[in-house]
């Protein structure tokens, strides 16, 4: 084994998009492979858990874990990699904020399992079979990990050194982080490795944002055509840009779609959703309760809209009465 720095990737409750973003490094991945040894990457390479276990504690230079934590197995792997690694990076929105899997905190585990295994329109399951945690056969007892009621962020279960935000993080941010790590000039622990300013600041349509916004109605992207030149928020579409960290380069805006907030809040904000809903609602034109509510009906699912990536990270974190 060479004495190059060792790099490990792992995924928990995630879609696999974060792994894609590693592949998206394109030819830059050659630079990464030249300078580090990838010693664990279940999606991309054939290493097993036992390969990780044989390293000394702290021998792995950096581990990047993407995905939220929802099962006993994910907790166990996170603990293992934490023990073996010098630096732990929460990679992507799910590990940092809960991400899309975090929206499951609006439901009970039983509701989700029932839907997935019994009620979903594409499911035929007359026996109502569900995966069992344990099963005995021929003297063997295989078991599956226990799913939890609550989806958690990576830093709720292990100590995390840095965060790479995004759904997925841009290849540029990943490359910058790897270079900074190799050079040994990392910022203080706990830093989110992206610019600490709102997306509006680097938005290509910044100049067309009016000084005063006064919403008469809210529009939804699948029902209306978005003007490709003007500030998307000023057109009445919910754009999370004002409350979202920059660093993505305005990818969605370039594609003429509003920002959905995947880079999370800036460091001054505790609850991204509370901030954007505060900003957007206070700019409604109406002054009467009835009229305000008529405008607000244009946002049929406020939690899904504003907490799309940050429900698990939010101040409340989970629905209470489930």
């Amino acid at each position: 084994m060479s004495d190059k720095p060792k790099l490990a990737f792992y995924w928990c409750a995630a879609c696999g998009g974060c792994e894609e973003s590693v592949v998206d490094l394109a030819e830059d991945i050659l630079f990464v492979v030249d300078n580090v040894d990838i010693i664990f990457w279940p999606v991309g390479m054939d290493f097993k858990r036992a390969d990780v276990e044989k390293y000394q504690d702290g021998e792995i230079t950096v581990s990047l874990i993407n995905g939220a934590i929802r099962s006993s197995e994910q907790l166990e792997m996170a603990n293992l990699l934490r023990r073996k690694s010098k630096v732990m990076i929460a990679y992507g929105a799910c590990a940092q904020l809960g991400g899309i899997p975090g929206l499951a905190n609006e439901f009970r585990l039983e509701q989700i399992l029932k839907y997935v295994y019994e009620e979903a329109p594409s499911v035929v399951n007359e026996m109502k079979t569900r995966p069992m945690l344990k099963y005995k056969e021929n003297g063997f007892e295989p078991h599956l990990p226990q799913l939890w009621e609550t989806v958690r962020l990576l830093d709720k279960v292990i100590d995390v050194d840095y965060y790479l935000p995004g759904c997925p993080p841009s290849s540029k941010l990943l490359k910058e982080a790897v270079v900074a790590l190799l050079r040994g000039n990392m910022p203080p622990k706990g830093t989110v490795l992206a610019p600490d300013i709102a997306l509006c600041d680097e938005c290509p349509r910044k100049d067309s944002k009016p000084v005063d916004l006064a919403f008469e109605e809210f529009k939804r992207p699948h029902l209306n055509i978005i003007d490709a030149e003007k500030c998307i928020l000023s057109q009445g579409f919910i754009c999370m840009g004002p409350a979202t960290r920059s660093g993505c380069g305005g990818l969605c805006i370039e594609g003429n779609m509003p920002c959905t907030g995947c880079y999370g809040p800036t460091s001054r904000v505790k609850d991204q959703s509370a901030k954007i809903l505060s900003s957007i609602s206070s700019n409604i034109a109406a002054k009467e309760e009835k009229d305000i509510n008529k405008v607000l009906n244009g946002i049929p699912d406020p939690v899904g809209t504003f907490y799309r990536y940050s429900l698990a990270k939010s101040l409340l974190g989970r629905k209470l009465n489930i």
Partner: protein
Amino acid sequence: MLNEQNLEHNTSKEWQPKIVAFFCNWCTYTAADLAGVSRIKHAPNIRVIRVMCSGRVDPQFILDSFAKGADGVLIGGCHPGDCHYQEGNYKCLRRFELLRRVVESFGIDADRLRLEWISASEGDRVRLVVNDMASKVKALGPLAFPKKQIEWAQEMFIEEEEFAGKEVEYV
């Protein structure tokens, strides 16, 4: 016969709701002050936080109050048209209407979050509002969010222990 001391003794034993009250400096806080000076008695369940304007009440304050153990949150501002800063109470109203929807989606009962316009001269209205809210929240019972957080966290530790003993089987 119930004398006042007796009553206090009885009530101190049972659960009392904690209500965080954000009162605007120019109207509702002054009204609460007036209520005090006029020796108006009201339920002792509110913890008043003076803000310069109801428009200063960041939704984060409200969510944080619930997250840290408040059973209810009351916001008091100037009547529409009377805001010291022209528009602050309108901004507060719009935020409140949206936040109320969010808070309800989180499973927090609508009666736990309340917005009231109380002008500087309406000392008695402070009493009416506070008493009414205190009794409604009391009927709902504790929200006990910090306690629930601890309960939710239990599942992590149970599984960790259970699986720790079986580590060998994975290899």
